[in-house]
């Protein structure tokens, strides 16, 4: 990986290229397969893995059975109150056993971040001209954007989610993500410990046909703040912890699924203020007051909430799925009540 960096050819871009090449080279070969029943490939979750909206499932993405390879592209758009998430990626499922995924997420921020950026810009300009100390926070006056790349892999270990209706054994898969957040300065400002980190998960998925219900339970071992969009860990370090996630889906028709999801989030940055040039913002309070911006300081305490969503996924055919959801993400860093609509499109080969 170090070598890839030196060559100025990011590993993640290489992975994307690899996935894209695989996807195109298998499209017409004997390995190509799309033999799964409609909708049973699931949709693409925001980290790029096959699953629900925010939770990876034990299902392998795409429509390939154990006889071949299949893949998909996804685009997810979530305009929340103060942030907008765009997530674009590709994933390939191999022999219904193994899955590789790549996703690039960008989170544009607004309001509070704009205000902060403006303040820091002004304050930074002052300290720069007075003391030759520019302040670098990673927050721009307008439209600060957080970028993150996620590489994922998943392997199905045992079990059969769909056809083993005569026992309780779920399909079980283990997987991992490697996430690279590009906003070093901003994450320092927000107090995160790391910008890059891995997380691992184990998922169990089962369909209960007599009650038209799918249940997925996932345990994710991670130190992520807001899935890594706000980095990993906090002032107390970045020890990982196990966080549960649950998806409950009702099969409404053979091409329509509705459901709810819950994902436990951490509290690494809860109560944490914003740090500038090694100083907690509280020490900047007098400066802010001088500038007539005393009200800003009060909004600078970060919090993180568990994520919830309610979704409807529609599968008009095996080449397309459309997932619409209402996402309730609660507190995201400095801004509360981040709820909004979520749209995810998945194109399968």
């Amino acid at each position, binding site marked *: 990986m170090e070598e890839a960096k030196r060559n100025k050819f990011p590993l993640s871009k290489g992975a994307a290229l690899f996935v894209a090449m695989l996807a195109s080279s298998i499209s017409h070969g004997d390995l190509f*397969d799309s*033999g*799964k*029943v*409609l909708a049973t490939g699931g949709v693409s979750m925001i980290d790029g893995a096959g699953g629900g909206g925010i939770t990876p499932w034990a299902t392998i993405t795409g429509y390939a*059975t*154990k*006889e071949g390879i299949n893949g998909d592209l996804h685009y997810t758009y979530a305009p929340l109150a103060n942030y907008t998430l765009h997530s674009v990626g590709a994933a390939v499922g191999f022999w219904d056993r193994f899955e590789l995924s790549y996703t690039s997420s960008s989170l544009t921020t607004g309001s509070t971040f704009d205000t902060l950026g403006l303040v820091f810009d002004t304050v930074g300009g002052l300290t720069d001209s007075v003391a030759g100390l520019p302040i670098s926070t990673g927050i721009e006056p307008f439209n600060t954007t957080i970028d993150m790349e996620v590489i994922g892999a998943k392997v199905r*270990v*045992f*079990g*059969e989610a*769909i*056809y*083993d*209706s*005569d*026992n*309780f*054994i779920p399909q079980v898969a283990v997987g991992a993500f490697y996430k690279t957040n590009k906003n070093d300065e901003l994450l320092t400002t927000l107090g995160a410990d790391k910008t890059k980190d891995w997380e691992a998960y184990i998922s169990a998925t089962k369909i*209960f*046909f*007599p*009650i*038209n219900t799918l249940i997925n339970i996932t345990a994710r071992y991670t130190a992520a703040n807001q899935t890594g969009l706000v980095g990993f860990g906090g002032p107390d370090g970045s020890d990982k912890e196990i966080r549960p996630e649950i998806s409950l889906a009702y*099969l*409404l*028709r*053979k091409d329509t699924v509705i459901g709810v999801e819950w994902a436990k989030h951490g509290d690494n940055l809860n109560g944490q203020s914003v740090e500038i040039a090694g100083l907690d913002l509280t020490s900047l309070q007098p400066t802010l007051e001088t500038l007539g911006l005393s009200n800003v300081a009060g909004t600078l305490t970060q919090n993180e909430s568990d994520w919830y969503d309610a979704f409807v996924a529609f599968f008009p055919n095996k080449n397309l799925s459309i997932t619409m959801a209402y996402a309730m993400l609660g507190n995201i860093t400095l801004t509360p009540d981040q709820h909004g609509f979520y749209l995810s499109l998945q194109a399968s080969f």
Partner: protein
Amino acid sequence: MKQLFRTIAITFMLCVAASPSFSQTGKTGTYPPIDSDAVEQFGGPEGVRNWVEGLFYYIMLDNRINHVFREFGNIERQIYLNTQLVQLVLGGDVEYQGASMAAAHADLGITLTQFNAVVEAAYNSCERIQLTYEACNQLIAGLAPYKHAIVTR
């Protein structure tokens, strides 16, 4: 690691072995159980017969699988036996006179993709006979475990 996989594999096989086998002697034991009025939801034995005819109609239109059934021969007989089988797995009081699913499919080399194609035909037939999706899933639950006996490749 090897030990772990072995433990998982053994546990898995024990669980599979402990689950009911399928000699077509009665209703499929699923979790949760198939509705007690499943045959009635299908419109009784006549409704089940309609569904099986629909199933074969869609199978014969699907080039991935129609040759398998055609080569097996005597479609009328297949429909007759399948009507018995479907009633049986749904909890109907009938006798199944055909061969076991394992015996009937042993030499056919059925793939999972082909099995899934029949599942798709099953859903199409449910829609064609105006059956609710919920009732259709009672049958899917009842037939799903036959995957182990039917898919041999």
